[in-house]
């Protein structure tokens, strides 16, 4: 392992403050540089590790850039058909109600082809966690317009910018889910800064607790970047995200349990 380190004297186990979770495997992530998927994975892995859920967790990956997620977290996994992860997770949780079951889905997966499965799983209040990576684009297939693509935003299938008159409006599916009686905790976060990473981690931890208590569906949206699809550097992409995505998809809780 080639390493480059700062001051050597400080580097000893007792001083360790941050280390990649053991739940992460040694496989190199297949994501583009700076892609938020990796950060989201890491957070999830940390929680699974910290909460001792490795033997409880069953993850469902979508079709999308995160299709290979099963290579990266050292837990049991199922790879679902495009858009169907909530249906897959429904069956898992119903048959293994003691397990921690979650899906991890992109915006194309969850809000386009999977619209019906998303809404109905949430409406049934399935005791699952849905982690929803909203990067406003179809990353894996090379940057096509997603339901969440912003008005005027360019993509390979909206090369002149999304024209809402013919291509529709960005779909705020998380807002819809929040209105359903079956959903319990619905929140929108991001992972592009350390502060946001902390908040997202807190949100996911809450969702884990609620699932233990059989409270219903929890959905954590993570507004994220897609430097490749957006044709920006990662740093530019994060900035653009703050300036353009957040106004449309404001961060914060959309539905919290009345405590």
């Amino acid at each position, binding site marked *: 392992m080639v390493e480059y380190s700062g001051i050597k004297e*400080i580097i000893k186990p007792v001083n360790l403050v941050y280390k990649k979770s053991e739940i992460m495997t040694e496989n190199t992530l297949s994501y583009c540089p700076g892609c938020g998927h990796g950060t989201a994975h890491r957070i999830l892995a940390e929680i699974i590790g910290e909460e001792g859920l490795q033997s409880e967790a069953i993850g469902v990956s979508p079709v999308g850039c995160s299709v290979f997620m099963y290579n990266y977290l050292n837990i049991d996994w199922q790879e679902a058909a495009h858009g169907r992860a909530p249906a897959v997770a429904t069956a898992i949780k119903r048959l293994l109600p003691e397990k921690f079951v979650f899906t991890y889905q992109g915006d194309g997966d969850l809000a386009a082809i999977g619209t019906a499965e998303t809404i109905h799983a949430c409406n049934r209040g399935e005791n699952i966690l849905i982690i929803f990576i909203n990067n406003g684009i179809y990353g894996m297939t090379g940057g096509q317009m997603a339901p969440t693509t912003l008005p005027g935003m360019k993509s390979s299938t909206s090369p002149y910018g999304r024209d809402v008159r013919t291509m529709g409006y960005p779909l705020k599916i998380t807002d819809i889910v929040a209105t359903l009686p079956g959903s319990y905790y619905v929140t929108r976060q991001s992972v592009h800064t350390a502060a946001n990473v902390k908040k997202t981690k807190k949100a996911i931890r809450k969702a884990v607790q609620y699932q233990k208590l059989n409270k219903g569906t929890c959905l954590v949206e993570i507004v994220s970047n897609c430097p490749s699809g957006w044709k920006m550097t990662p740093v530019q992409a994060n900035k653009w995200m703050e300036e353009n995505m957040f106004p449309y998809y404001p961060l914060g809780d959309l539905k919290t349990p009345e405590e």
Partner: protein
Amino acid sequence: MAKIRGSIVVNVERCKGCEVCMVTCPTGTIAMAKEVNGKGYNYAFPANPELCIGCANCAMVCPDGVITVYKTKI
């Protein structure tokens, strides 16, 4: 008053040179290398190691889990 000092370890071969850690670091510890790693990326490294306060911001935002952080009071 005890001063807090940190130190990071970058797993160079896994770095993708995205620069996200660099812009996140509050102290300017990190810079990008002129050289590329085996994957062709200019990787991150602690250019100003003495500035590091071990806040772990860099590690938290690194998508590839490349950075390990240590901290101590001196």
